[in-house]
């Protein structure tokens, strides 16, 4: 792990914990935006620019704006406490889950390991990498998988986004967006 990655992991961890602990809603939203920005940079370092762009635009941008708008329209409960009280049974459950997940980390292949199953798998990853350009004529394999090989899934996702927009109108008891 390079120093940059280490710093980013620590930053993301601290902001994530701070988001959960801050009592004030506004502080939590701001720290959450910082967390999203840290994740976006981490994705870039891990060579996933597509995911990084999504995280920066949606996690740090749209989510923060919509949450800020929500507290502007509702209320921001005042409190003297800086931090939320820690819920001990919840903390124990989360720590246990984190511990179980962390035990799998030493067995995970290194980043960029050519022998990693996810990469060397001849039926999935290698198939896409070898056949994408001949099959579809596009150079970005991610786009090809999303739009062509798994077009039906993407159609489902698009309809889910559409349904989410409509559901917001239903919840707000409105008939128009404006």
């Amino acid at each position, binding site marked *: 792990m390079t120093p940059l990655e280490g710093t980013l992991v620590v930053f993301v961890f601290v902001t994530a914990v701070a988001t959960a602990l801050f009592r004030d809603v506004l502080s939590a939203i701001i720290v959450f935006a910082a967390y999203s920005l840290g994740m976006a940079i981490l994705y870039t370092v891990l060579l996933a620019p*597509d995911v990084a762009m999504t995280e920066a635009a949606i996690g740090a941008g749209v989510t923060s*704006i919509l949450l800020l708008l929500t507290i502007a329209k509702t209320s921001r409960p005042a409190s003297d406490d800086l931090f939320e009280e820690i819920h001990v049974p919840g903390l124990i459950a989360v720590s246990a889950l984190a511990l179980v997940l962390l035990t799998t980390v030493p067995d995970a292949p290194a980043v960029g390991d050519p022998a990693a199953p996810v990469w060397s798998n001849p039926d999935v990853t290698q198939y896409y990498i070898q056949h994408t350009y001949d*099959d579809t004529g596009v150079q970005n394999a991610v786009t090809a998988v999303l*739009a062509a090989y798994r077009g039906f899934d993407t159609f489902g996702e698009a309809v889910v986004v559409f349904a989410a927009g409509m559901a917001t109108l239903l919840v*707000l008891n409105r008939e128009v967006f404006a």
Partner: protein
Amino acid sequence: MARADRSMERGEAFDDTYVESQVILTAVRLVAPFALTYGLFLSLHGADTPGGSFQGGAIIGVTILMLAFAFGIEPTREWLRNSVVTGLVAGGVAIFIGVGLATMALGGAFLEYRLFETILGIPDGTKWGMEAIEVGGIALIVAGVFIGLFFATAAGLHREGEEA
């Protein structure tokens, strides 16, 4: 101007109208064309470079949100009518379904782009079919839903018997 924005700008407690800031307006005017171009670039060029219509649509949506913050929500709302936002969202889904059904009409499976090339004779038909659902479908849906969510949240809950 734009009295309705004040609730969004700094909560209900402060009683003053939203005054546009010359500095923010100028900066947004300068940055918005670049942001919009970047969003369009990501959508249109996603097939060959990192990026894609989801990211591109999100950035197009965020550009509108930025304009709304600078110019006030009400003027933006008047400029971008409900029919436009609904048209973006519903039109995106319609284009997506339309492309899928078109390949079925040509005798293939849902979204079998190859048929655009083999039957209709469009060069690189697979690529253009994917571009159609990426740009015409997902980018429009995502941009429309973001703008719509923003306007809907800014307008708030519509109670019975109250003017929208």
